[in-house]
């Protein structure tokens, strides 16, 4: 910005820090300092109560995690959560966006309604779905019995085999509207003349969708996927309230394990190590995205 013919660096710096200073102080206190603190704690053993943190144990907490079956279970579940949820969320969102991307009665009303789950509080959603999944009188089993599929009725959250898929389904349900809205905005910003030219040249709807629209949408599809992946790795409320990581760790993810280690078992060192690992995973994915997705580098971590 060439605001001054003769720039005075110290004046610019004073003004700059005057404006940005308050934000930096707060981010420093609530973000940077905790990162350092967590890293520090992850090298110590501490129950969280003795006045000072316990002895320095080096990488012992990390080694303990590497030997802990529950940790690997949580890691695997976090990965499964993301690997199943993201493709569903993005593809369903894209399908609905494609369907809504035309002149259609009540289109904006539908967009509004599809977005309602995104606005609803996760705790409300979670408690409703607990009831939906309830084995005896819940909506899902009642519905299955009603249409003659009573044999499929199942204790969805009580069975380790179905608990994780059931939780993932809720997460997809909650977030499809988000992908839909982003992708619909993307579709509406595509160059109309190019698509029109293809139509005039005789491309049918199928070819138009898969040969033209999808490639043009690649960056925004990737961005939607990235947001979903990062959101999925951070997931906590949904699982904590719905299953508390159970039954028998079948839905335990990194974030719920962290909470349990810290505030139920008082293993502050181990919990901090989990936090550090979680951050490392999220930041490296955000970093990978900078290569895959040059257009939205700003979402990276600089």
């Amino acid at each position, binding site marked *: 910005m060439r605001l001054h013919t003769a720039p005075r660096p110290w004046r610019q710096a004073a003004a700059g820090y005057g404006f*940005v200073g308050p934000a930096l102080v707060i981010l420093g206190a*609530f973000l940077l300092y*905790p990162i350092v603190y967590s890293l520090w704690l992850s090298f110590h053993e501490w129950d969280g109560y003795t006045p000072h943190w316990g002895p320095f144990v080096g990488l012992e907490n990390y080694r303990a995690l590497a030997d802990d079956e529950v940790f690997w279970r949580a890691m695997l579940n976090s990965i499964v959560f993301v690997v199943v949820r993201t493709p569903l969320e993005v593809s369903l969102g894209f399908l609905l966006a494609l369907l809504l991307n035309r002149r259609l009665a009540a289109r904006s009303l539908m967009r509004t309604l599809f*977005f309602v789950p995104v606005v609803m509080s996760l705790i409300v*959603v979670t408690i409703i779905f607990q009831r939906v999944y309830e084995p005896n009188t819940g909506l899902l089993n009642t519905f299955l019995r009603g249409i003659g599929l009573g044999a499929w009725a199942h204790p969805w959250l009580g069975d380790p085999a179905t608990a994780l898929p059931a939780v993932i389904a809720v997460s997809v349900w909650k977030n499809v509207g988000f992908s839909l*809205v982003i992708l619909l905005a993307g579709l509406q910003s595509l160059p109309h003349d190019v698509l029109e030219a293809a139509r005039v040249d005789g491309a049918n709807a199928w070819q138009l969708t898969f040969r033209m629209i999808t490639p043009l949408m690649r960056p925004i599809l990737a961005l939607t996927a990235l947001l979903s992946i990062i959101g999925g790795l951070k997931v906590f409320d949904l699982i904590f*309230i719905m299953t508390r990581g159970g039954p028998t760790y079948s839905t335990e993810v990194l974030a719920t394990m962290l*909470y349990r280690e*810290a505030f139920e078992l008082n293993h502050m060192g181990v919990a901090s190590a989990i*936090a550090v690992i979680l951050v490392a995973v999220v930041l490296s994915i955000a970093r990978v995205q900078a290569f895959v997705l040059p257009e939205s580098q700003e979402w990276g971590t600089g």
Partner: protein
Amino acid sequence: MSMVATTASVARAQRLVGHRARAGRGVLWAVLLVALALSIAPGLYMVSLSLMDNPQLFAGRLVPWPPHGENYPRAWVASNIGRLYWNSLYVTTVSMVVTVAISALAGYGLGRIRFAGRGLAYAIVLVGLTIPLQIALIPLFINLRTLGLLNTPLALIGPYTAFGLAFGTYIMKGFFEGLPRELEEAARLDGAGDFRIFAWVMLPLTRPALATVAIFLFLQNWNEFLFALTFVTEGRMRTLPTGIYALLSSEFYGNYPILAASLVLFSVPVLVLYFLFQREFIEGLTAGAVKH
């Protein structure tokens, strides 16, 4: 002769296309309506449950008839919702206002002033956008405890402000960058200083961005669960999400309709705001993804 044949076959082809288009239209509507039903059914189920009594619930009914409206006053009293509303409103509003103000300042600084260290400052903001807040959970818990701030409004206002700042600054910076330079130069020629230009010339132009940020922060803080669960453990100071969560382990767990009524009471203000300001809500929640 051949001309007629061609016309006939074109007409046939057009009829065929017309049929296919109508059939396609039918499939389109079917898919959309099923998806729509799936996305609103759970909400309707919640409302329906909130109007039942336990026998109706256990009979697996779907329609609450006769309706039990008295669940609502009972839920209001039982879950102390008035108190929870007040706590949530207080914490949410204060942190939202503070965050918006500080974000606007920082967004202006990063977007319109060149100074040494600007790149680093922006990098810190971007880290704040991506990083999971779990990293701060234990350190903040320990520090808040040391300072004796657990179970006070400050225990939530501080962290909410900090964790909304990155988003707010990111959006405001983008918006300030897009404003024309002439305005600023004119004001500078009139002798206005940096802060005057910011407050009187630029800030009033950013109203849409301010609304976006404010709505995003409001919703995020209104629904926040992890910090609220960890930093506020006493009933008196709880916000709505943890207050409702506490009902799950209370005597009301057995009385699901009362719980459902509490959930409806929790959701109504946000849904009313959403339907009034849909454009701003959708913009606010997706602004981080799609740049203006």
